[in-house]
Structure formats: C-alpha cells, structure tokens
C-alpha cells in the first residue's frame, strides 16, 4: 500500500476497500489464481489457457468523502474493475467491502440491497429507459426498491432540480441532448441516496465543452453532498481535475496509486511518466516538488507559502519578489523555492507543448 493512502484511510473506516481482486475471463478461470500461471503476462496466459486477465491482483482503499479516480487506457481493465465492485461482473477472487458489507460473499438478495441503497453507478452510454419520462427514469431505483409512487416522484423531483434539469421532468430521454441525458443518469444514481457513487467513463461520450460543464457539476455535487466517488476515466486531465487520488492501471494491474502531484512529480515507471509528460506541470505540482532544502545564507524576506501550494498559483508572487519563496508548514521552514525552480517547471511545459 502506498504511504499516502495510509494517511487518508484510517484502519477500518474505509468507505470502500478492495483486497487482492482478480477477474479472469474464460473457461476454468477460477483455477488460475494462486498458481504460477497467474504470474504470466496477459498474452502468455491467453496463449496457454485461453483465459484473459481483466483485473490482476488489485488492492486499494477509498476514504469516506474521497474522490478516487481509476485511470488507464482502453483495455486496461478499469471498466471491469468498477463493475466488479457491485458484481455486475462476478469477480474471480478477492475481497470487496462497501460500507462494512462484504460484497463478494453477499447473497442475491443482499447484493440487491447493496445496489439499492449503498452504491449507485453512472454509465458511459447513460443506459436510460427510453420508454420512461425523465422523472420515472430518476425514480427507477426507488421504484424497484418498492417506494410508493407519490413518495418516489417527490424525491425524484428534488434530485432533478439538484442536477439542474428542472422543467424537463416530463421529457423522454431521446428529447434531451447527450449532456442532459447524462444529468438524468447522474440524478438516477443520486436518487437512492447511496453512500458510494461509481462513475464509468461518464463523460467520454460528450463534447469537450459539455464534458467540462459536467466535470464542474460533479465537483459541485461532491462539495454539496460529500459522497464517496470512484471515477473511471481514460482522460488524465479529467483524473487530475477531479481526483483526490488516482489509481493508474495497465493490463489489469495497478501501476501507481497517488495524489495528482505524486503521479506527475514522481511517476512510478516510464509508462506513467510517458502518460503524464504532456500535463501542464505547473497546474499540478506543488511547491513541495520544486523546493530545495534551506541553506544558511538564504534570504528571509521572501513570501511565505505552504508546501501544498500549486506552482502556478505561487508563480506570480514568487517572480514579483526579489527574494526566493520560503516554504513553511506548521510554522516550520521546510524549503526554499528559487525563481529558477519555478521557471524550470513553467518553461519545460512550454517546450513540451511547443
């Protein structure tokens, strides 16, 4: 486990905890985990047994209220992973605990209960019911739970307002734009008031501008409702924008788990480095990543900032001052940032984008 996650998740109070999760597709898949075959690469295993590894020995924990982003290219197993969390795809082995409920060993009825009340999901292609009005789509989760018509419609009405769709309650999904349809999908997930929201590439099918709106919408909802979120995406910008922490997957396995600045500042390997090479680093990196240890002769007149200030925000003040920035955490001087260090981040970025 990453040191960072130990900081955010205290023992036992995780909203979601996944341990050694495996998903292997194909005949006889359940006999592979734990044998030497499991160590084979995807291609080799496919060759040998005809089975395909979707998720390989994944473990992580998500703290209550955290936005946890899983990111990877297509085929990396991220969508399989999120479906395993509520067993829309049956995991091959491992342990999943949501709100203290063991998902893997749950019976059919317990699983339904979990899906109805604890975890909701938003899908890439919306998955709305075309024959129902927006209001009844939103109320669907309550309906299958057995909530009376009046009550569930009232609740749905409220949620429709929350996602900014007031006035469209009586519309049918095909009368709405893609962005609005996904708002319906979001409302449907929120209606049953789950503690955990799962997003499977929810904005990939949308135009860039609408996507940005929807991302901001998610940020707003997260601020207002404080739900725990697991967010799947293949878009690094999106991951960095939304995620408290990011899990990077490749070929079904975890490559790195870390905060945005950790992923950009200290990529675990060349794959992640390659991935993050085009990110505007000044937007992500904090002073922690550019500061040097203080030396006795340093000026003490420079502006004071904390180590988690993003470089871009620090840049103007730092460059305006003739003295280097003093990085202070908890009243303790932890480092110094020269103009050079800031310029190196900003200029390197210009070169990349040029």
């Amino acid at each position, binding site marked *: 486990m990453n040191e960072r996650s130990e900081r955010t998740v205290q023992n036992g109070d995780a909203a979601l905890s996944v341990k050694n999760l495996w998903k292997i597709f194909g005949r006889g898949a359940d006999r592979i985990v734990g044998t030497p075959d499991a160590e084979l690469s995807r291609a080799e295993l496919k060759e040998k047994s005809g089975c395909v590894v979707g998720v390989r020995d994944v473990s992580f924990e998500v703290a209550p209220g955290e936005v946890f982003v899983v990111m990877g290219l297509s085929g990396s197993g991220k969508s399989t992973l999120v*479906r395993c969390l*509520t067993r*829309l795809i049956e995991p091959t082995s491992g342990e999943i605990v949501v709100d203290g409920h063991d998902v893997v060993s749950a019976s059919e009825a317990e*699983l*339904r*209960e*979990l*899906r*109805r*009340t604890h975890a*909701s*999901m938003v*899908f*890439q*292609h*919306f*998955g*709305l*019911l*075309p*024959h129902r*009005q927006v209001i009844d789509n939103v109320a*669907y*989760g309550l*309906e*299958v*739970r057995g909530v009376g018509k009046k009550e569930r419609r009232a609740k749905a009405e409220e949620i429709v307002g929350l996602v900014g769709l007031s006035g469209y309650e*009586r519309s*049918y999904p095909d009368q709405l734009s893609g962005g609005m349809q996904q708002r319906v*999908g979001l409302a*449907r997930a929120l209606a*049953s008031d789950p503690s955990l929201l*799962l997003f499977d590439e929810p904005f990939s099918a949308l135009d860039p501008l609408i996507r940005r709106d929807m991302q901001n919408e998610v940020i707003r909802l997260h601020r207002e409702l404080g739900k725990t979120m697991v967010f799947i995406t293949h878009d690094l910008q999106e991951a960095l924008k939304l995620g408290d922490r990011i899990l990077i997957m490749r070929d079904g396995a975890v490559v790195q788990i870390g905060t945005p600045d950790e992923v950009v500042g200290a990529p675990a390997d060349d794959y992640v480095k390659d991935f993050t090479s085009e990110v505007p680093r000044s937007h992500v990196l904090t002073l922690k990543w550019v500061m040097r240890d203080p030396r006795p002769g340093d000026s003490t007149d420079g502006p004071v900032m904390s180590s988690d200030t993003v470089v871009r925000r620090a840049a103007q003040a730092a460059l305006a001052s003739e003295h280097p920035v003093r990085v202070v955490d908890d009243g303790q001087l932890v480092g110094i940032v020269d103009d050079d260090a800031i310029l190196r981040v900003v200029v390197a970025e210009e070169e990349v984008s040029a």
Partner: protein
Amino acid sequence: MTATIAPPRPQAGAEPPPPSEPRSLPRWAWALVVIGVWIVVWALTKGTDTLEIPVRVHTEVQQQLTDFRDSVLASRDTNPLIQFTYSLGGWFTDVVDWAQRMISIPDFPRPVPQIGWLGVTAIATWIGLAVAGWRIALLVGASFVSFGLFGYWSDSMDLLIVTFVAVVFSVLIGMPLAVWLGTSRRPWVVSMINTLLDIFQTMPTFVYLLPIVLFFGIGASAAVVCTLIYALPPIIRVAGHGIRNVSPTTIEATDAAGQTSFQRLRKVQLPMARKTIVVGLNQTIMAALSMATIAAYVDGPGLGKPVLSALFKNDVGGAFVPGMLIVVMAVMLDRTTTAASEASERAARGQVDLRLRRIVLAVTAVGALVAVWASRTYISLAEFPETSWGPTLAGWVDDFTEWFTDTFRGATDWFKNLISDYLLNPLQSLIAESPWYVTATAILLLAFVFGRARALLPTVICLAGLRYFGLWHDSMITLTMTLVGTLLVMILAVVFGVWMARRASVDLMLRPVLDAGQTIPPFVYLIPMLALFGPTRFTAIVAGVVYAAPVAIKLVADGVRGVSPTTLEASRSTGATTWQEITKVQLPMSRSSLVLAANQGLLYVLAMAVIGGMVGAGALGYDVVLGFSRSEEWGKGAAAGISIVLIGIMVDRICRAAAHDEAVTHDATRRPRWRAALGG
C-alpha cells in the same frame, strides 16, 4: 473471402511468393462439366428407369402409410395420444363453434346468430377506434360491410374466428418461449429454438395438413391446429429477438439499481422490446390468416372454401370475389396492428388527451351497444341483406378475363411457350426423364460442386428418402418447376433489387407494393394467374414467382444497399462505369444476400408449386390433394408431403452450404436484416 487473408509481407528484394494453390476450374465450370456429361448420358438413356407410376397406383411404402393411418384411426378409442389430440381438437371445435354461433351462423333456435352483422361491424369498428384511431375504424367498418355486400359474411366471419383463435393460442404459447429465447443465458437454448424454428419455416405450409388431419380430424379443429403451428414461429423468433437485443447498457444500468430478474423483465426488457414484439404479433396474425385460408383443404371454415371450390372448377370470377375479400381482410388486419402499435406509442408518450379519448370511447361504445341490440332485434340488421354485388363483380371479372385472354392470348401464349419450350420442357426432360440413378448422381455431384462436403450428407439422405417414398418422377417434376420459378424470381430480384438499392425514389415507390404483396395469402395469387394461363403447371410457377418475388427483391435490395459506401466511392474514383460498379462491386459484395434470396425464392416457389397442384401443376401437389380427397390414397398423399419436405430441405441445405463462407448463422447480430426482409 480469400482476399481478406493477407499473405505475409514479402521481404524486400525477395521473389514474389508463388500462388499458394494450384489453379483449378471455378465452380461454375465444374457445374457445366457435370451438366454436359449428364446431357450426354440423358440422350442415351432417356425414358428408362424414370420410376413414373400411374395416378391410382401406389407403392408398398405408400400402402404401408395408408395402413398406418388405418391403424391409428382404429385405435382411436384406446390410444391415449389420439384420445388426447381428439379431445384437444374437440375443444378447439367447441370454441370455434361457440364463436360461430355468436357472429356467423344461426344459433338454433334463433334463425340468426346471437349478434347480427350490424352489431359485429359496430363492435369491430369500435375496437379499431379504441386501438388505432378513427382512420383505422373507418377501414375496419368498410371492410366488414364489404364482406356482407359481396355475399360472404359468414365465410368471412369464420375465417376471422379461426385466425383469431389460432393467434390467441400462438401468443399464449409463443410469448413464454420468446421470453425464454430472449433471456436465456445458455447458448444451447437459443440455438435449439432457432434450429427448430428454421425447420418449421422450411416446411411448405401444405405439409402440416396431412398429419394434422390424422390426429385432429378434419374441419375447424384441424384448421385451428395447423394455423396455430404455422403462426407460432414468427412471434417466438421476432419477439425473442427483440427481447434479446434490448440494449445491454440499459440492462446493466438498471441491474445496478438493484432490480430483481422479474422487475428486469417487466419494467425493462418487455417495454423496450415492445415495438419488435408488435412486429412479431403482426407477422403471426398475417401468417395465421394465410394458413387459415389454406386450411380450406382440410375443410376448415372460412373464405378459403369458396376460393378452393371455384379454383377446382376453373371459375376465375367465382374465386376472385372471396379472394379479394381475403386481401381486404389481410390489409385490414395488417394496417390495424401496425397503426395500433403507433397509437400505443403516442399514448405512452402522453401525446393523447386521455380525458377526451375516454369520453369519445364511452360515447361510441354506447352507439356500438345500441347497434348490437338492434341487430338482435331486427332481422334485416342481423342477416346481411342479399345483394347482387358479388355475382355482378364475378360476372365482370369473367367478362374481363375473357376479353383479356382473347386479346392478349398471343402475348401470354408467347411467354408461356417461350418459357415452356426453352426452359421448362428441356429441363424437365433432363431431370425427370433420365434414369433415376443418373439424376441422383448428377444432383449429388452438383451439390458437391456448389456446397462441397457439407452439402453431401443432407443431399444423400434426401435423395434416398425421395427414392424410398416412391414418388421419384413426380418429385423431379416438382423440383423442375421449383428451379425454373426460382430462376425467374432471381432475375426479377436482381433487376429490381439493384434498381431499388441505387435509386431511393424507386425504393420509395416499390417498397410499399412489396410489403403489401407479402401480406397477401399465397392462395390468392393463383386466381389471376389461372385467368392468364389456364390450368397448367405454368400457372403455379408464375404464381410462385409472384409470391416469392417481394421477399427476394427486398433481400437483394437490402444486401446491395448494405455494401459499404466507402468501397463504392473508391471504385467510382478509379473510373468504373455503372455496369462495372454493379457487376464487380455491388453484386459480388452482396453475395450472401443473393444466395439467401435464392434460398427463400426456392422455398416460396416450392410451396406454391404444391398449392398449385390442383390447378394443373400436377406432380406432388396433385398427389397431396388426392390424399385429402380419397381415403385409399392417403398413403400416397403422405408420401408426397414427405417428399416435398425432403426437396425443401435438400435445396435449402445445398444453398446454405454454398453460402457457408458468409454462413446464415444463428448469430443474432446477423439475423435481423434478412429476417426483417423475410417478414418472418
């Protein structure tokens, strides 16, 4: 297909690799070789060992079949299976009988049915209004009045009753199977049901009749049972397909909301598949209507009866009027179900003022009830007054037919003789007048040439079966008619199909005509052809061509249109002419549709060649008809029925084997286009 398998990229500077296969003759050249040898052998051996048997003679196998029938009939009181089928049949008869006494025949001691024509028309019109709106209500009302005006009120009601009863049971039996087909996660269930449905759809309608008569007797019970069996496959296949094809994303999304599997079915799968289910229902109704008319052969009540007896007498005018009413009924049922589905869509979307609708329906319901009361009270409103419309129209048709045939005798005879002299007769002579072992060998070789090894086994079995049941000569004549008919169908299909695919305006114009053509029961096609060509085998062939053409044309048109526009654009950019574009790109790339069209054409023409048995087509169709009418010929009729099935299976298997590169599979993703085009 071989073009898609890319050879390994040659090394720079290396010699180009030699062709991987030794050059061999193309399939058509081999076929010509086989046919050439066949013709030579035929010239030497013609007329020997043709296995022709006189009309009233039967072979031992056929006699055994008759004996089997007799033993089944004799065991009627002891055999539990027969007792079961007879009591089931009796129950169907009771249901039909009750309905008949309600609306079609006098319910003793009343001199008239319980509800007279005015009441029935009013109720039907009201139902049309309720399910599909006022336009359909007008259509329904006018149709019902026309049934009476032309003097076929009770026959029309009987046909409706048989159709309706069969459809109700088809839906009761078919929907659970469709749900099973649509929701089963076991691949073997899907492939098993699909295979069964394929077999049923390969069987010409006629073939159901004889065994059904054995187990259910003749009359209303046999009519309901054979109609039920024939109408069952569309609803299972189409509805099952619709349920299976509900968007998996939506299923997953709603599963994630924690629904039970019953909630999934009721709230997601069935509503989302509703449109397709209604299409299946529509096809089931049309199939039921078409079979219910053919059930006249087993003394089933309905409009088929007057058509049949007139056809037997070559009375074109007499067949025309009830035939026309069958078409009226087909159009009425087709339009009503289609419009009903559209109307329910609108209602579900809240585009209908419910309050107004309720008021209108309540008021009109009162009107309908008054009409029912009146029709029970006044005799003239109960029994449709006699009119001279029917006989008058029949007379006009006869006059017109006479004038037409007199005037165009030259043209029709020229066409008939052209096809007969240059295609039909030589081919029939070759196929039927060669010694049976020569023909069998030739068919086998051709099957191998076209279908390779996978066509061999079914062909051998079918040929052996044809030989065993002792109607070899008749079978070969029927096969010849089928092949000639199919050739004509394919010419039509390619010409019109390509035309439709290339010009949207042509498509727009022809498609409704073709759709309408598909709703008409096959029986009806015989009437105008009989007028044109008289009672000959040619009549049956042309009727078969007309019957099969809509399906084949639509299949070819859809196939050609399915050719990727990018490929077309690429070919155009190299400067291909229109002709080159059609022959080198569009037709080769839609080969699977062409094969499928030929396959369907064969089966449709075969079905018609059999139905046409009694208007001069002779051969197997006549044997079957004889089997119905003469007790001692039952075995021969049954043998003829089995032979028809064997021919159908044989040509079907050879076609499929020939096309197996782009195999017609049970792959659900490939099914919809051609199934939709088939209308089944």
